[in-house]
């Protein structure tokens, strides 16, 4: 069981990352992935700017990923989270879980996403197409509720 967490500004190649998890392995039956993309919110946004707390961002994601990997018996669990300015349609976050069976892979992937939303120190500032100052994206009650389903 290997947990890998990367917090980085640059984009990445999800397929290459996923293939690396299963390279030379023939005991992995299931790979579940999640990709979070920046939305334009009805073409009103030109970008989201992600601020993060270096160090704590990595450790909080690692903590959630390690809990997920233990609880759901995955072979490998990879999380990549970007920061900086991200345009609509671009990748923000990627989670990939490999396992012998599909339930563990799905559960691990979803668990990590649910905890990321509320426990990873990132904040998103909106940049608007019309040049006006955008606000900070609010935390959602729905995200707290999503996390609670694992508790």
């Amino acid at each position: 069981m290997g947990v890998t967490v990367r917090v980085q500004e640059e984009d990445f190649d999800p397929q290459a990352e996923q293939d690396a998890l299963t390279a030379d392995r023939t005991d992995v039956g299931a790979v579940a992935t999640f990709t979070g993309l920046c939305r334009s919110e009805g073409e009103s946004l030109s970008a989201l700017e992600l601020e993060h707390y270096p160090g704590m961002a990595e450790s909080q994601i690692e903590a959630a990923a390690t809990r997920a990997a233990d609880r759901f018996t995955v072979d490998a669990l990879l999380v990549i989270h970007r920061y900086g300015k991200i345009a609509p349609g671009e990748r923000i976050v990627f989670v990939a879980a490999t396992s012998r069976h599909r339930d563990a892979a799905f559960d691990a992937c979803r668990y990590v996403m649910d905890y990321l939303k509320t426990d990873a120190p990132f904040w998103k500032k909106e940049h608007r197409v019309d040049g006006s100052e955008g606000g900070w994206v609010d935390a959602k009650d729905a995200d707290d509720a999503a996390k609670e389903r694992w508790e």
Partner: protein
Amino acid sequence: MAVKLLYFAWLRERIGVPEETVELPESVTDVTTLLDWLATRGEGYAYALESPEIVRVALDQQLVHQSAQIGEPREIALFPPMTGG
């Protein structure tokens, strides 16, 4: 005690600096008294901390409750609810 304070997102914007090193007075023992004291440091601080109950606090990168004792951390971070993912 000198300690590094870090501010993120709209707390950083309102306070006006991303970080600073301050000498904490004796009156600051837990998170609540820390936020009360910081709010007296100027207009930006007062604005940033006008709703202290929604401010999240991490001591040496560990999230803590507002009732937590401060102890002797190397850094204290203040930020809004997190919105990762």
